[in-house]
């Protein structure tokens, strides 16, 4: 089931949650709506579900306009951020709910409901919890039951609001992979909302980056990470250093190196973005003002955080006292043997200078 969102606008009082947002979601894809809190991603999800109505614009499911269709008729599965399990019903009854409330003509028999619920509980690997009540489950279990409940009505579209938001880091990672596998098995068009770029990059087929009620970029995880459309996307996906530069004739100088700015960049002050892992560190050796080292500039190591797979090094640029953060592998770190207050040479390998000021 493909979803098409056309120029949807939604205001809450004076706050504009969505500004003419248009988006096409092809059938069978797993799409992430990614953005900081308040960017309108949950509102968009709720509009797709029919829990909110847009002020203007339209929603189409498989080409059919569903903008004014009732939530009940849309056949969507919705997993709420805090799961919203019915606390006074057993897990079994929670999952069976969508089938039991159907009108008599279309309601499956008790035996059918029983086998369908069992099937779903097996799918989420929690069939042994059928008689428990939601408060007796862990966060990860509740999440999976909420998903089973949403799937029970055979939704044409599956919508998930911050599906991993309320879980601790380890469970979150596990469930992420599990959701991806489940999607590959079921192939139901799915949209999930997240503010966690790592989650979006790992799970989604496509990512929709949103900010302040607008879509900033749509693309595969690789697209948005490697070729961010603008400064916002670049900053939002991964760590980044900001570096003030002077642009003239589309070029800016950092150290002794010239970098070209993006198309449309005006002359004048601009911010260059450098990812921490794109900064190369080398030790100054005698007479190294030659060759490749030409591009390098001097800095002092102000702090080293040697914990984890990557070593984070804080550098103070000697010319202007600006702080840059660099990341290097443990191996490289051992080989360089740098410590606090060492003088080093740094070379930015990739720099992006965007047209708009930020």
């Amino acid at each position, binding site marked *: 089931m493909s979803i098409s969102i056309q120029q949807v606008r939604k205001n809450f009082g004076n706050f504009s949650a969505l500004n003419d947002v248009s988006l096409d979601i092809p059938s069978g894809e797993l799409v992430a709506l990614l953005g900081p809190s308040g960017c309108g991603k949950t509102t968009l999800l709720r509009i797709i579900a029919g*829990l909110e109505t847009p002020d203007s614009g339209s929603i189409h499911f498989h080409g059919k306009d569903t903008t004014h269709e009732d939530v*009940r008729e849309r056949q969507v599965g919705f997993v709420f951020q805090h799961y919203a399990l019915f606390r006074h019903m057993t897990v079994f009854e929670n999952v069976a709910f969508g089938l039991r409330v159907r009108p008599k003509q279309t309601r499956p028999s008790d035996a059918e409901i029983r086998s369908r619920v069992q099937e779903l509980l097996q799918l989420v690997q929690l069939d042994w919890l059928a008689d428990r009540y939601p408060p*007796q489950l862990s966060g990860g279990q509740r999440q999976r039951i909420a998903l089973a409940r949403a799937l029970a009505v055979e939704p044409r579209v599956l919508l998930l609001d911050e599906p991993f938001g309320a879980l601790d880091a380890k469970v979150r990672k596990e469930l992420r992979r599990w959701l991806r596998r489940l999607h590959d098995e079921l192939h139901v068009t799915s949209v999930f909302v997240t503010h966690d770029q790592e989650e979006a990059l790992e799970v989604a087929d496509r990512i929709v980056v949103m900010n302040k009620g607008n879509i900033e970029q749509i693309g595969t995880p690789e697209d948005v990470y490697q070729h961010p459309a603008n400064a916002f996307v670049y900053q939002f996906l991964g760590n980044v250093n900001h570096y003030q530069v002077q642009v003239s004739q589309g070029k800016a100088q950092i150290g002794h190196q010239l970098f070209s700015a993006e198309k449309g960049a005006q002359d004048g002050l601009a911010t260059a973005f450098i990812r921490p892992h794109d900064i190369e560190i080398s030790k100054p050796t005698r007479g190294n003002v030659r060759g490749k080292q030409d591009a390098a500039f001097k800095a002092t190591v102000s702090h080293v955080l040697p914990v984890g797979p990557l070593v984070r090094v804080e550098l103070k640029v000697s010319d202007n006292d600006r702080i840059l953060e660099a990341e290097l592998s443990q191996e490289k770190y051992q080989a360089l043997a740098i410590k606090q207050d060492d003088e080093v040479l740094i070379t930015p390998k990739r720099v992006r200078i965007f047209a708009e000021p930020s």
Partner: protein
Amino acid sequence: MHISKSVNQYQSRTQQKRALAEPAWVRNLLILITLAFLTLFLFLPLAAVFSEALRKGWQVYISAIVNEDALSAMKLTFIAAAIAVPLNLVFGVAAAWAITKFNFTGKSILITLIDLPFAVSPVIAGLIYVLMFGLQGWFGEWLLDHDIKIIFAIPGIVLATIFVTFPFVARELIPLMQAQGKEEEEAGLVLGASGWQIFWRITLPNIKWGLLYGVILTNARAMGEFGAVSVVSGHIRGLTNTMPLHVEILYNEYNYAAAFAVASVLALLALLTLVFKTLIEWQTARANQSAQIQE
């Protein structure tokens, strides 16, 4: 560093405990004062009601209760409660539902209106009905023409009772439903449930203890109401006297034994209500506790 910090925290906590703990004699004194107060103002009057009622022996007691006028007063009290409680239950649930699940203009006005019966004196409430439905009232002539009696008749008593017990259920449910939010209802909606199905299968089970508590409070007030009912009743013996009014009449006629006998029945009903209330409080506390443990 962490360890020393937590030790500090521990110390400060125990110090705080010690700081809050009064010496034994202060504690005992406070308990004594409380007990003395309760005895003087609550327990003694209650005991007095029963001892006065039985002063002239069981025979007088029983005959005062099975007296025709007394029985009719009890009947009227039960009728008033039996009409007011279900009506206010429905209204309270509807109002709480509207206030907590929807956004609409005038919501705060509605909340204030619900509190009105708490704010105004019951006597004023009674007078409002006299003003509206009494002979000289707005609808007085029309009612007379159509031969409908409200003031100095049972409908007036029921109306006054409904008015004073109006807020209990809604007041009990609004905070509860606000705390529960509307996510579960939305989940039901997305799963295809109709409004009625959502109410019966999701909302009602979630609020049942709060609702019952509200009903008990409503009932207690409905049976005990004096002021508002007194204004609209007309005190016609055997016709428009509720139990509290009957007690007053007997007392004014110096028929103390009978007055206290009827009063003791009223007190018993109140005690019974208290027992129910305590049971429900205990039940909800247990439900809350288990929910918290599982959190």
